[in-house]
């Protein structure tokens, strides 16, 4: 198991945002997290990636206890995330956006040689279909490309586990296909992916296993087929019988 989340609880005052959630992700899979708005998906992400400390419970990454560890430490261990509302370094070039990841994880003072770092960044840009945008300021990119930059910048940390928070949110169908193509390629390159997504077409097609949250609690876990037939999930979230397209 690359990620083991054990009975994690996160409260904000009286609100229990994440309520005793446990799950684990095995190496090489794409694991989906779905649930209605306010179900605690993003909070759970923030707890796993070190932005929030859980009130109780533990998180293990590659067998090591990482509960409460700072996000920058986690990135160096190989666990990183993207943001639902993308956070590109707007005033910096696309290439520099990726170089920051490489410097930060490989070392600022020595680390990779400059030529090697740039070559590595260019490889990832090509992978994400952004190489032609190399020297453009990130603020000049349209939304779809910003979403891919977000993933590319995370990949530049060379993660073993990549956590994607709604990578297809707010995209046109064409842009969505481009982003999901990148996600599939990421998995093929051997990176484990945990993904939060609202778009059912995306999540059902791309994930091997799905966990459903509602009011901070886990209500189901299983393959896309099992989830789409689960009565409780249908009641809480899907609304009507959802058929998996193959």
């Amino acid at each position, binding site marked *: 198991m690359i990620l083991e989340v054990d009975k994690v609880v996160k409260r904000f005052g009286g609100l229990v945002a994440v309520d005793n959630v446990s799950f684990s992700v095995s190496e090489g899979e794409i694991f989906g997290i779905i649930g209605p708005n306010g179900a605690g998906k993003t909070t759970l992400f923030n707890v796993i*990636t070190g*932005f929030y400390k859980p009130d109780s419970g533990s998180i293990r990454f590659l067998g090591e206890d990482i509960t409460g560890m*700072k*996000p*920058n430490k986690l*990135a*160096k261990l190989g666990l*990183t*995330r*993207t*943001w639902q509302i993308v*956070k*590109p*370094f*707007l*005033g*910096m070039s696309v290439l*520099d956006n990726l*170089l*920051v*990841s490489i*410097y*930060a*994880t490989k070392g*600022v*003072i*020595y*680390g990779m040689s*400059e030529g090697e*770092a740039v070559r590595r960044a260019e490889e990832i840009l090509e992978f994400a279909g952004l190489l032609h945008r190399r020297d453009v300021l990130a603020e000049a990119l349209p939304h779809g490309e910003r979403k891919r930059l977000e993933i590319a*910048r*995370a990949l*530049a*940390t060379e993660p073993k586990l990549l956590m994607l928070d709604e990578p297809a949110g707010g995209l046109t169908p064409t842009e969505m296909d481009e982003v999901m193509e990148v996600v599939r390629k990421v998995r093929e390159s051997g990176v484990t992916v945990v993904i939060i997504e609202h778009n059912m077409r995306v999540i059902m097609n791309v994930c091997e296993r799905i966990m459903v949250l509602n009011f901070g609690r886990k209500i189901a876990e299983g393959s896309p087929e099992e989830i789409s037939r689960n009565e409780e999930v249908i009641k809480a979230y899907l609304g009507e019988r959802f058929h998996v397209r193959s």
Partner: protein
Amino acid sequence: MLGITKDIVLRIAKYYLVALILLIPIPLAGDYITHVTILVMLYAVTAASLDILVGYTGRLSLGHAAFFAVGAYTSTLLAMNWGVSPWVGIFLGGLMASVFGLILGVPSLKLRGPYLAISTLGFGIIVWLMLINLDWLTRGPLGIPGIPPLPGIGPIDFRSKVAFYYVALAFTLISIFLLHLLTKSRIGKILMSIREDEDAALSVGVDVPLFKVYAFLIATFFAGISGGLYAHYLRYISPEISTLGESIYILSMTIIGGFGTLIGPVMGAAVLSLLQELLRSYLEYRYLIYGMLIILVMKFFPSGIYGIVQFILRKVRE
């Protein structure tokens, strides 16, 4: 190291060579021009150092004059009470300014935006009050006259404006060159990522608190050294150099010059100092004028004088 390649060094060094050649003959223009240029250069380094905080790291500081003053008083007191050579004292003044930078920088790590601005403002005022009230050490509001000049080297006497000018010129070019390299280095890019988005920087592995502290250490060090040189040049200092007005004067240079460009603040220092010389008889209106200039620049030319110069150069080329 730090991602600084020979290419970058050579490309930047070119400009500094040109600046050196242009600035070498200045003393020929007489004592007054030499004097004004020396002050412009000391302010230029201070404004450029502030740009590392404000322009590159996105940390607004309203107390930068305090660090200038800490450098000035440290070097002065070391020279007058313990006979430390100002050549060493100025450097120690820079280090002392960095210690003060640490004292402000570490507790204010988590503060953002206006909260950080207020804490830096408060810190500046604390330093000012200390300089006024620690009579036994600083002679309070009277200030310290009779500060020893830089000790001469062989036949060169640094009481002469011309001799001091070349010290200041070397110090200025080297300091701004180093800061310039820093902005092009890996540290510069890391600092910019913090400016753009702290959470995103954290998520890709940037040790945000550590680099914020670095930014404070570097910015305050250069401000402290400028302060030391200033003290041994004018040979009189008073708490006046650490007032809020002085901090805002330096910040005005950084903003009006164009923050986040490093060279902009240098231009800002030149333009505002000249303005101050031209408006000598209206000195009481200076903050009114700086305030209006800051508003106009932020509204119409957010990239400041640097942006305007670049715009003109581009037009000329076309």
